[in-house]
């Protein structure tokens, strides 16, 4: 019971800390390099949402380890794109999700994404906040996906972090405004 409560109190965003140990192994063992680019995507909302955004900006402005930019896509999602080491980026994303959850905007979080590079190919690890699971997404230039690379990454990470096992839920996010 104590354990369960403790787990709950960590919040849904804390699962991304699993990436901190994972990304080193991905880099050294499989040559899948983290590009220092990550992002969190939040659906724009009304109410106190703008105040929360200013709060987020204030926090990001004071952070020396991670630089950021904010973009809005055509679906009305705000993308907070970060540039920094995995440890600091994960910490920042966790802080942001904490703030959003406290202010009652947890439903507005779409996903956080981490961009990797494998032999010149872009590979995203997506973290879905609804399912609390990761899944790989390797877009190719013509709006198709590199399934082979996705399945390879899946088999590598599946015992290390919570991964979406149902490939039918590996929804892509096209044109992530990160590059």
């Amino acid at each position: 019971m104590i354990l369960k409560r403790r787990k709950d109190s960590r919040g849904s965003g804390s699962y991304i800390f699993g990436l901190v140990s994972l990304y080193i192994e991905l880099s050294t063992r499989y040559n899948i390099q983290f590009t220092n680019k990550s992002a969190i995507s939040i659906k724009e909302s009304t109410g106190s949402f703008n105040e929360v955004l200013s709060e987020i900006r204030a926090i990001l402005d004071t952070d020396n380890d991670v630089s950021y930019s904010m973009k809005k896509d055509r679906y009305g999602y705000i993308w907070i794109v970060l540039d920094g080491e995995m440890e600091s980026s994960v910490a920042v994303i966790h802080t942001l999700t904490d703030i959003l959850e406290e202010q009652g905007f947890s439903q507005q979080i779409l996903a956080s994404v981490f961009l990797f590079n494998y032999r010149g190919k872009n590979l995203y690890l997506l973290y879905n906040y609804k399912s609390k699971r990761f899944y790989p997404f390797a877009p190719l230039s013509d709006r198709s996906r590199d399934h082979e690379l996705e399945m390879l990454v899946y088999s590598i990470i599946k015992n290390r972090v919570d991964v979406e096992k149902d490939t039918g839920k590996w929804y892509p996010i096209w044109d992530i405004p990160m590059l």
Partner: protein
Amino acid sequence: MQIKAWKRRDPGITLRLALCFFILSMLYIAFLTILAYIGVGFIPLVFIGAFLVILQFLISDKIVLWSTGARVVSEYEYPRLHAIVDRLVIRAGLPKPKVAVMHTSVPNAFATGKGYKSAVVAVTTGLMSMLDEEELEGVIAHELAHIKNRDMLAITLASVFSTVAWYMMHWGWYGMYGRSRDQANAAIIAIIIAAITWFVSFLLIRAISRYREYIADRDGALLTGKPSKLASSLRKISGMMNRIPERDLREVEAMNAFFIIPALSGDTLSRLFSTHPPVQERIRRLMELEATMH
């Protein structure tokens, strides 16, 4: 090292096969005891059953080719296909099997034959057009692994028991008529036991078959050195490519309220009856193998 692993027979499968035969033998001894109790000569029947099974085995490759409509093709007709087979058999240390083609758009492949010399590898035209060179190589390597491991022989031997049980079941049925009441009761028991024997052996053969598929996947993948290629062809063949969605997550989120998630799937029962393991599982194992090679 990879080639060595390929040449080595899998000790696990031999053990399992032996265990299966042991269980089946026990069932048979029980069955024969019942027959002896009825007091009827069963020896002629066993001979007939064995004869039919051997006959079936001897002409099995012809039956398979005839029933699938596969035609043995020459190097001039399908040079690319022959080249792939040539490359693989040299590395596998196998004599070259006959190469056959089936004219259908359904992507599929099989291997058959009593031994190495009479073996046939067959692919459909649909398979050849769907897969690229490396993927086709993966599939053919999988089929060659079946030949290498003599899976046809293993399955036929396992079937002997189930076939004989089947004949005995019929015999028990006919034996019921025109006899005294006691003998009729005994015959009913014989039928029930034969039915159970047949059913258990049926499930066991399927379990062996599924296991041999995994082995062929692994051996085939080790032969080409590219497990991910076989995995990707399996995905293509099974149509799983469509299962990974192309639709954007943000669009899906917009209509999330309409989603209905199926709560339960009755998968387990159908798995028990299937001769092939689930494709997802085969791909998963292949990709794990791939991961260990990096």
